[in-house]
């Protein structure tokens, strides 16, 4: 009996274990090894040590893709966070139609990024898109969304007649279009997650605050924000991880050449893709970039986890 108990369990895990071992664990370890070799599709050629990593530091394309990705994260994550908390709050106070709103907000979450990107590319098109017609109502005309390499701050200040230095230009308008799509796509899911978090806050806290005469704003900042912080950290971490991996939007919305105009939308995952599977097929260099991405994501996740521990209520 005892023997049976100790022997059989592994049989249950085995199918999953083999797959995870072969298609996750081994590839992850291999990715590390590949980055230290000159490695082609036929296998290792020679050990090159840190050569790829040294090359990274001098590679302007890598730095540009890193900066583009950071722009994406810096815009998408906070805006998504604030907007989704805002709409979750509105939904939480709504009874009529709340099911309908939830469904509509959620639609982008379940639709494929490929189709979404194709549609938004057309929406931003200056000839046949609808975006320029919409912003036309606000007096903005003739934006060349996806082929505009100038930074959004350059454009905004430029319209006011102020020239600002190039490094303050911010993400290009094309990248900003991708930012808009990414926010639009992640808003619904995070709103629903926030809503679930809000519904877990006991009503009595608000009733007590009401009796004490606290205003709605005060209730929001003193009760909602602190008590919702576990959800906030979940949303923060998940959105950061997802945004670092944006690929489809860039692959389908920009170009030709993809990543344009002037490489201002080339994000890091696209750069990995291009290096590994494009003309160069440089698997080992692509692996090195992928590992750097992994380290960045891991560090940020751990920082956020540590912050979470500090502000726990």
């Amino acid at each position, binding site marked *: 009996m005892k023997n049976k108990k100790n022997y059989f369990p592994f049989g*249950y895990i085995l199918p999953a274990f083999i797959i995870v071992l072969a298609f996750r664990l081994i590839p992850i370890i291999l990715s590390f090894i590949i980055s230290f070799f000159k490695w082609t599709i036929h296998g290792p050629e020679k050990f090159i040590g840190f050569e790829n990593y040294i090359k990274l530091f001098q590679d302007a394309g890598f730095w540009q893709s890193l900066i583009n990705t950071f722009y994406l994260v810096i815009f998408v994550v906070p805006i998504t966070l604030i907007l989704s908390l805002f709409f979750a709050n509105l939904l939480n106070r709504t009874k009529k139609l709340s099911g309908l709103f939830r469904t509509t907000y959620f*639609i982008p979450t379940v639709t494929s990024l490929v189709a979404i990107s194709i549609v938004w590319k057309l929406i931003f098109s200056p000839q046949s898109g609808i975006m320029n017609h919409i912003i036309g109502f606000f007096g903005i005309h003739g934006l060349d969304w996806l082929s505009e390499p100038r930074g959004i701050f350059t454009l905004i200040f430029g319209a006011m007649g102020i020239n600002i230095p190039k490094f303050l230009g911010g993400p290009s308008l094309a990248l900003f279009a991708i930012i808009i799509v990414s926010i639009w796509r992640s808003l619904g899911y995070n709103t629903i997650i926030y809503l679930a978090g809000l519904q877990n806050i006991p009503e009595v806290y608000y009733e007590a605050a009401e009796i004490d005469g606290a205003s709605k704003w005060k209730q929001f900042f003193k009760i909602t924000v602190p008590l919702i912080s576990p959800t906030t950290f979940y949303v923060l971490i998940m959105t950061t991880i997802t945004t670092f991996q944006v690929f489809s939007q860039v692959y389908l919305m920009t170009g030709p050449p993809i990543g344009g105009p002037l490489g201002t939308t080339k994000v890091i995952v696209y750069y990995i893709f291009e290096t590994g599977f494009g003309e160069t097929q440089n698997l080992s260099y692509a692996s090195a970039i992928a590992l750097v991405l992994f380290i960045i994501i891991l560090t940020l996740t751990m920082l956020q986890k540590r912050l979470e521990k500090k502000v726990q209520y």
Partner: protein
Amino acid sequence: MFKHYLGKGVQYFMLILCGLIMVTPFIWMLSTSLKSQTAINKGSVGFIPIEFVNYYVHDGKKELCEIVMEKEDEGITVVNIYDEDGKTFRQSYVEAPSESITSSKRIKFNWNNYVEAFTRVPFGRYFLNTVFVSFCVLIGVLITSSLAAYAFARMQFKGRDFIFYLFISMMMVPQPIYLIPSYFLLTKLGWINTYQALIVPWIANIFSIFLLRQQFKTIPQDLFDAAVIDGCSQFEILWRIVIPVSKPILVTTAIFSLIGSWNSFMWPLVMTSSDHLRVLQVGLSYFAQEASSSTALLMSASTFSIAPLLILFLFAQKQIISSFVTSGLKG
């Protein structure tokens, strides 16, 4: 009181505005997919597929026509006359007085775009590929995850926790990290451009194992004790007791698996290159590059690729949304 209603009004206004922003791209996609390419090229961006058509009005009749040539000095317009469906040709090169030609708007749904998109590219094949891959992955995930989750939740053995946490730690690793070595390994296996490459690596899903394990742990011990006394084997316990009482979470797992496979893009893009293995998303992305100027067809293809999952979502939206919420809170 007035302030209260004003507040409610603003609240609903914001919610509706946000709802509109969420669905407008889809409605616009659908309406663009029904426009004629000529109308799009002429700058028709509205939501209703409107076409400008010319009519030749004579003898109390109004006939659809196409202008061939205008002889301005003679005041004559040469037209081809069509039947009302706009396709059947009736008469060519009719010389009509210019003043009898009227131009008007009409709403026309070009369902033909869908037919044309399907003749340009084998979307039917892509659709079947996607269905086949999604189905195999779904079955695989349900089997491997139930088995593994049961062992993790209910069995004692050496290294159990170590293996479990090893799994969990790999859940956090983003796909771009293992994409390149996987490509190398699959090449060595000779799996590039095969269905195996799209299915086998995905039939074990760590997140599903995690979700199911959490659920299996909540099943009362009494149930197991009773089953053991009745002489059930471990597998019978899993099959006859655990699975039936865990249906909701299995449905959640199935939903995630389906959505994941249906929308998966980067993996099949890298692992397949031959046309007959393309899944819907990859086929759509190639079509977007090849037919970038045929916007109407492109929108038809996009609508088609979204539709199955969207219909599933609209039917099971409560279940799907709550699946996302529970998994979000547990994960």
